[in-house]
């Protein structure tokens, strides 16, 4: 099984640890993973700003790079959703193929690899942020608005991590307010949403906030650091891979 690793541009530049953990995790489960080095970005910042019409060449590039893999895996719900919803190219067959074989990391682990045991150790109190695009867009977890049975793919994985203590939040799937360019064009509301989201985690004495989207975590990290908090953000891949980065003491 060949996997093309799609790493969001800001993860590549700012959170390489999340990308490394993703890669190592997939390899641990026997996947043969490559990172096409010519990749740039999925075009979401443009599209969500109302410039989807400028994303054609970006889409062409993306399609060419990823067309030949069995699967494409990405450690971001938001970027995955964007590509799944909006990737079109002159080779539409290839674009359609990518839209179908692209998975966010946790859903790839639960649905394709059908991972049932996670060999990881992370002895901390952790709050899980349900990023909206992953949750409501990709249905990684049941949404609190619907009258439907609960499930959560990321939590299903986290619950198997040894030593982890998962807290349950007052508002389990409220948006953090990142929202792409929203975070600067609507600075006041974005920050207020972020502060409130962070406060919910802090109220439950978490040591880490995790999630499937580094962008939401980056926003909350910015708020945490500004207030001098010791609480850290960490991508879910890093926790699921924690045994490798941080061997458990038996």
């Amino acid at each position, binding site marked *: 099984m060949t996997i093309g690793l799609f790493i969001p541009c800001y993860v*590549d530049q700012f959170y390489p640890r999340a990308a490394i953990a993703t890669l190592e995790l997939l390899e641990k489960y026997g996947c043969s993973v490559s990172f096409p*080095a010519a990749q*740039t970005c999925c075009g979401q*910042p443009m599209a969500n*700003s109302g410039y989807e019409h400028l994303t054609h*060449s970006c889409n062409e590039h993306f399609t060419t790079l990823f067309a030949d893999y069995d699967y494409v895996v990405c450690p971001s719900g938001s970027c995955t959703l964007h590509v799944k919803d909006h990737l079109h190219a002159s080779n539409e067959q290839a674009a359609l193929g990518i839209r179908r074989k692209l998975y966010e990391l946790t859903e790839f682990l639960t649905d394709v690899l059908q991972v049932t045991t996670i060999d990881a150790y992370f002895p901390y109190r952790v709050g899980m942020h349900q990023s909206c695009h992953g949750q409501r867009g990709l249905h990684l977890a049941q949404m609190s608005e619907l009258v439907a049975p609960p499930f959560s793919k990321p939590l299903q994985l986290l619950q198997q991590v040894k030593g982890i203590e998962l807290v349950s939040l007052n508002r389990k799937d409220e948006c953090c307010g990142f929202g792409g360019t929203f975070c600067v064009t609507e*600075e006041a509301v974005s*920050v207020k949403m972020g502060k409130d989201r962070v406060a919910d985690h802090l109220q439950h004495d978490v040591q880490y906030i995790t999630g499937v989207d580094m962008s939401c975590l980056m926003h909350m*990290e910015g*708020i945490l650091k500004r207030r001098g908090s010791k609480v850290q953000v960490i991508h879910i891949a890093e926790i699921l891979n924690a045994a490798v980065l941080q061997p458990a003491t038996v």
Partner: protein
Amino acid sequence: MEQSNQQHADLARKFNGNESRVNWHDETLWWIRQKRDKIVWQVPEWEALREAASQIKHHVLGNLADYLEEFERNAQQNGVTVHWAADAAEHNRIVHSLLQQQGVTRMVKSKSMLTEECHLNEYLAEHGVEVIDSDLGERIVQLLKEPPSHIVLPCIHIKKEEIGELFHKYLGTPEGNADPQLLTHAARLHVREVFMSRKVALTGVNFAVAETGEFVVCTNEGNADMGAHLADVHIASMGIEKIIPRREHLGVFLRLLTRSATGQPVTTYSSHFAKPRPGQQMHLVIVDNGRTVQLGREQFRNSLKCIRCAACMNTCPVYRRSGGHSYHTAIAGPIGSILAPNLDMKQYADLPFASTLCGSCSNVCPVKIDIHNQLYQWRQVITQNGHSPAAKTAAMKVMATTLSQPKVYTLAGKAGRWVLRNMPWLVNNRLNPWYKQRNMPEAPKQSFREWYAQNKKQG
């Protein structure tokens, strides 16, 4: 109630000037969202009901002309006079002329978001007609000379202490008394006098039943009934999209409406008006005001399914923290943001961007409008119609070029960190709004691609 030209972000920033008030506003509306959650979980077929409502409305929108004509025929047979208004101005003229025919200069009105959309009160005031809003919340904002900030809870942004002050000033309640029971009693006496003395009453319409020609008005206060039953002339204003084919469909919509709106099982009063009582006149004004244009926009057509329950506002994390007035339009929140650009794309170009596209609105919507997708689509339409800032367009073009040329991107990305200089939220200077209240992420020594090149074979 002057029209504001300010952008949502500016108005939201002002609202956020008082953080404890924002917290209070957010928590009040979240409490309503929780009440809604609690009651919808008591209806096991909730999702099926939503689907049914959505399908009924879909069918209506596909056959709107036929149903409107059927409704008109039946209403006329019942003795109701039907008027058609192409736009807000015509609606206001019709209402005014009906008042003139009666020779009255005073009218009582129950909740009607359509008349807010048409700015009826202002129009009538300019023509020497005094309108008293009989819904308690609407009366409060009317006394404050403000527009409603929420379509179901018009004064949700006002604290009870402020209402106490207001009533002290206008209704003579004791100073410093904010006891809800006392204030409601004062309002009741005040509005009762109005009901008794007005010859013309205007109400909104929640549902218009094509097969019978009757219309249904839902209130919790019974104020629509009080007004209509005591007046010689009952005028009801409705948008063309209020039609449902059959009376039995109320069994779907009435179950959804108030559960979604306030978490109650049903409105206290769901009154059916079919024909004028002897000696009374009943007039229906059926208004288009841009709705047929929206009907013609395929990707936005579904917005006309809206039954104005406001669940999308209560759940919206942005609305809760920016307040209804930040939307500078009669209908605030997520639904307002997809309706308003249809009326004036330039004036409301900011609204579809006042969202994180989190999607919670679409999930609570009882008629399953894909609100967040429509917000995304409006962004595209607004941009392509030239209503976005030139600087933004220029920046986006640079981004588009770079992202399709990996050499340019990776060269810039090495030491220069292209992302850092070009992603709007990461532009590394202290003028960046990101930095005002948030720290920048720290750039690591190595990007992932550098690490990969060093540690792994070529990809």
